[in-house]
């Protein structure tokens, strides 16, 4: 079993990723850390606890993390995609399980020291917690086996601006710190996640299945899909965060190309763009494995069979 920490800004596709991860026999989820991004960190923490309780996995500890970006002001949350409460305005029972006292980045450092070379950190929101952990403990770059990041877009358009993806937009300096730190990174960006679509047919199957969990997830994802349709993606919604978990479960779902990636932090037109050097003779050595292709049929099938 692979030991993972899942770093989330729960969010609808984060909820799917949590469910997929806790149900996977290949993964041992040591804890879930929360951050801002789709929503505030307080909402992300609440939603994470609620989702774990809904799934019957409230024994997995939850650690609250960064409230705001390393250097910038907190941006507005992504209400269009995730609703006012972050879960497509689907109401879940109030959370019962207490949140851990330890801070998210401290938990990351503690676990990396406890399991040297054996810990995978999966970030599916802003990368602030991991950036703080690396800043506070530079040894993280050697202790952590791999970081799998849902974020960025190298060969395809962004989803927040023409060139930038939402998780990188949430804290571009944090992303740049992580990418340049030397920690092994796999980037699961829009290059691949926009090819892995959940469709309305899938939701119909979840409704047919008729469990509380499957119906609630169908309702949440319907909200998410309607938002997707408003920005011109009518075929379904991207399985962004679940694919990052999928890549840990089975790296052969994707083809990753090592390349030098830097993050634009100019604050201008290209802010938060993940710039991959795809030239024949790149100017700098590779620092990120960028996923460029995905076996979407095999992944989506695996996801649907294991998500709950």
């Amino acid at each position, binding site marked *: 079993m692979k030991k993972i920490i899942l770093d989330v800004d729960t969010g609808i596709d984060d909820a799917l990723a949590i469910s997929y991860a806790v149900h996977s026999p290949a993964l041992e989820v040591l804890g879930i850390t929360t951050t801002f991004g789709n929503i505030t960190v307080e909402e992300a923490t609440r939603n994470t606890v609620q989702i774990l309780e809904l799934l019957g996995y409230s024994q997995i500890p939850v650690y609250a993390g960064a409230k705001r970006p390393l250097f910038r002001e907190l941006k507005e949350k992504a209400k269009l995609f995730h609703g006012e409460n972050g879960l497509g305005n689907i109401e879940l029972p109030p959370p019962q399980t207490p949140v851990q006292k330890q801070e998210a980045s401290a938990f990351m450092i503690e676990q990396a020291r406890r399991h040297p070379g054996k810990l995978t950190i999966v970030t599916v929101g802003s990368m602030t917690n991991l950036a703080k952990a690396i800043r506070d403990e530079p040894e993280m770059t050697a202790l952590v086996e791999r970081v799998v990041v849902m974020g960025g877009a190298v060969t395809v358009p962004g989803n927040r601006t023409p060139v930038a993806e939402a998780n990188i937009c949430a804290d571009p300096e944090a992303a740049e710190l992580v990418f340049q730190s030397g920690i092994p990174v796999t980037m699961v960006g829009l290059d691949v996640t926009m090819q892995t679509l959940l469709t309305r047919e899938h939701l119909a199957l979840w409704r047919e299945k008729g469990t509380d969990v499957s119906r609630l997830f169908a309702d949440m994802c319907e909200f998410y899909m309607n938002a997707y349709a408003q920005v011109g*993606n009518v075929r379904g919604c991207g399985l962004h965060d679940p694919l990052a978990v999928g890549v840990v479960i089975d790296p052969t779902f994707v083809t990753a190309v090592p390349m030098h990636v830097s993050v634009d932090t*100019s604050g201008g037109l*290209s802010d938060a763009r993940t710039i991959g050097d795809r030239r024949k003779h790149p100017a700098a050595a590779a620092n990120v494995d960028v996923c460029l292709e995905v076996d979407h049929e095999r992944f989506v099938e695996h996801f649907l069979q294991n998500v709950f």
Partner: protein
Amino acid sequence: MHTKKKMLLVTGEGTDHIPALRLALGSPDIELTGIVFGGPSQTEAMNQTRQVLESAGQSGLLLAQADQGAELIVRQADLHRGELILVTLGPLTELAKALHMDKELAKKFAAVIVKGGAIRVPGNVTPIAEANMHADPEAAALVLASKLPLLLVPLDATYALHMRMDGGNSLDACAAMMAAIHPEIAERQTLKISVDCQSTLSRGALIADLRAIPRVGIDTEVCLDIQTEPVVKRAMEVMGTGDKQ
């Protein structure tokens, strides 16, 4: 009588424009009216250009150094109002200056073909920026905003060509020239385009809003794809190189 299309050529640095110049001189449809040298210290480029012009019996053609380039552009646009095709193979500095000198300039051209930028393909100066845009991004931004009858020919258009034959910048210049002479071989689409003038990392990068519903940038005609066969055939004749296949 067969009316030739009038063309003013703006080169980049060096001699990469020579094969494209030969294409223009060899075309029965084109009457070259002048050449602007778009970069500094152009002695070698000018010498070679003069030789090519002489052998084509065109040694009387108007040539302008970069510092007189904008003036020549303004003068010729007036002289051949509504008829002139402007082809730029280098940085857009002189065209931007010309737009500044004559506020009505944008209305006076028949077409403006700009070789520059990289949209889906990597850049050739930075990972995302192409040399002509990178050399003067502010000029490029001004040109994009000017409402010129523009056709942008980025590196994307010649990506497939480079698989077929060697030729570097000269091949890109030939493709832009072919798009000017034979508009029908250039596939056009309208994209929303901006140029980053501010960022250190992204300076000079052309940004196209390729999202499902584009919102950012100025509507610009772009040629992302050009018919390979005619370009390879003509480029081989003027560049003296062979097909890779």
